[in-house]
């Protein structure tokens, strides 16, 4: 039965690409394996008893309440068209400059990072909002689609992102487990807030890289990012009126977390209520709108937590078959020690990113490899940020990157798929550059959290 864990991974990959919902595929496949194992006498049925307790742990998890609250905030901002106006407002200010439209897409993408934790949704929204405008103003399709794909995945790493909430929570349990194994007397903790703070510098480096790429391209090859004619420049006061409230809201939420004033959960509730007030001020809030946002939030939240439960069943069975000990042995035998183990995990996660979204990888892979890597002495916060940037790169990489599929879905037929691939290539390069920088200088991640503590 030593091959069972490996076989589980192979089978789940085959099952998942058939397209049945991930949450139930994970749980169902694991149960079939457990069933066969129990009949063959190689699996202790007692492992299956642990599920209600595990689910109850998730039910009582206070940190994860931030998930529906952030989703609510993002959905409210989107449905009340705040995002749309933000983009057109910024474009009006900066559109007159070479590359100005591209710059405003990146900046709005960065500010709206909170909106969704799902790559697809962000890329689709950004694609629908900005691609037609960019093409109409004469942008090179490759540059336009590359910018949009990259910006759409930026939401994974720029706080407050749902991806980081989930990753932070999972890493925190993995860290507890690792320290328990090492019999650490006074275990340290890692929180979602730590991850938010740590993500700030890498996120800003990425934004700076994106911005300079667009600006340099516009300067060297003006025909690829032409300035728009400034036919109707809006009044500065109207513009400020549009821009200031949503930007202030996002800065308040983020600032209170970064300064350690509020926990992510608390800040998220302020964000959700604030977004509703913004909608109210714009006359976009009604009973029907509240219900609509509630329903949409319900679907996203339930989807996330069902994957968490499905992944819990999967890892219970995986452990029941001794899978974690096998991975442990494998990592210890790895040439290059800890560095080798990290490199392998990063490659595996990168490849998994071609078929799985952030949520699934966080819930399936991190609980299995996390405790082992952390017990080898890897810094949990650094590991989290490396995983996040790595996944974001995976989502952008042709031909399987998630973001590319989603943008293809909303891009007009006049944009060739090859254009999209050509367009994202430089952004993938920038992502890899960041990954190398973080590997070389971990202080980029660890400096700010240490400073604020």
């Amino acid at each position, binding site marked *: 039965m030593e091959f069972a864990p490996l076989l589980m991974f192979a089978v789940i990959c085959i099952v*998942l*690409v*058939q*397209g*049945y*919902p*991930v*949450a*139930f*595929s994970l*749980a*169902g*496949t694991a*149960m*079939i394996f457990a069933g066969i194992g129990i009949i063959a006498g190689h699996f202790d049925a007692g492992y*299956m*008893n642990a*599920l*209600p*307790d595990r689910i*109850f742990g998730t*039910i*009582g998890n*206070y940190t*994860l*309440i931030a998930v*529906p*609250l952030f989703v*609510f905030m993002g959905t409210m901002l989107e449905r009340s068209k705040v995002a749309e106006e933000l983009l057109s407002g910024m474009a009006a200010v900066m559109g007159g400059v070479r590359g100005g439209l591209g710059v405003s897409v990146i900046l709005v993408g960065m500010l709206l990072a909170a909106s969704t934790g*799902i790559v697809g949704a962000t890329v689709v929204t950004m694609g629908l909002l900005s691609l037609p405008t960019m093409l109409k103003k004469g942008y090179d399709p490759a540059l336009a689609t590359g910018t949009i794909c990259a910006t759409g995945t930026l939401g994974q790493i720029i706080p407050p992102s749902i991806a980081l909430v989930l990753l932070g929570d999972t890493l925190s349990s993995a860290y507890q487990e690792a320290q328990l194994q090492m019999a650490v007397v006074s275990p340290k903790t890692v929180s979602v807030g730590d991850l938010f703070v740590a993500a700030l510098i890498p996120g800003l480096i990425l934004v700076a890289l994106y911005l300079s790429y667009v600006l340099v391209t516009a300067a060297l090859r003006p025909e690829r990012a032409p300035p728009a004619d400034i036919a109707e420049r809006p009044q500065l006061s109207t513009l400020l009126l549009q821009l200031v409230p949503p930007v202030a809201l996002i800065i308040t939420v983020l600032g209170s977390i970064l300064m350690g004033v*509020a926990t992510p*959960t*608390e800040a*998220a*509730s*302020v964000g*959700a*209520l604030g977004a*509703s007030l913004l909608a109210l001020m714009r006359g976009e809030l009604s009973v029907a709108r*509240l*219900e609509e946002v*509630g*329903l949409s*939030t*319900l*679907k996203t*939240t*339930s*989807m*996330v*937590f*069902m*994957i968490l439960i499905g992944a819990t069943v999967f890892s219970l069975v995986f452990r029941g078959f001794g899978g974690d000990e096998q991975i442990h042995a494998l990592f210890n035998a790895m040439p290059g020690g800890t560095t080798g183990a990290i490199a392998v995990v990063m490659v595996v996660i990168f490849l998994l990113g071609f*078929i*799985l*979204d952030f*949520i*699934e990888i966080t819930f399936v892979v991190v609980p299995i490899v996390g405790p082992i890597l952390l017990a080898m002495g890897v810094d949990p916060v650094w590991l989290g940020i490396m995983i996040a940037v790595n996944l974001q790169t995976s989502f952008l990489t042709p031909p*399987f990157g998630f973001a590319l*599929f989603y943008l293809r879905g909303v891009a007009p037929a006049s944009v060739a798929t090859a254009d999209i691939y050509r367009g994202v290539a430089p952004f993938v390069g920038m992502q890899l550059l960041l990954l190398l920088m973080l590997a070389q200088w971990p202080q980029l991640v660890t400096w700010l959290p240490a400073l604020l503590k």
Partner: protein
Amino acid sequence: MGAIKNLLGIIDGFTELTGRLLAWLLVLLVINMFLVVLLRYGFDYGSTALQELSTYLHASAFMLGAAYTLRHNGHVRVDIFYQRYTARRRAWVDCIGVIVFLLPFCGYLLFYSVEFFLSSLAMREGSSEPGGLPALYLLKALIPLAAILLALQALAEFARSLRELLATTDKAQ
């Protein structure tokens, strides 16, 4: 077929109703959580009961909302191939998925969680925190209840996929 169609309508309608109810619980969650923050930072007052209410609202939504999410095809799929499948092939995937994965999962969840809930109910288990809510068993009831709602909607989805399969076979003949 008529009876099945009626039953389908009833299940769908019921799930729809739970969804709308749970959506409002989420709106309440936003307000309640903000209240917790306001009381803590504005009035330096921490209410365990209000904090726990947040947990109850949040947990009810994500557990019981699974059925509504299924009804609206909101559970994420790896759709690289699925999105290019014909309607018939999708119906096959969904039919088999319900039988092989979803219903057994619901059964497993129900089987192991009923005892978990009943033992908590028998001793009227409350919060372990002073000033907490007295009905922890309600929170535990969410697990079997979610399994039942999800199974019900799974049957409806199965019937829908089956109808798609039968309808296209008829046309082919």
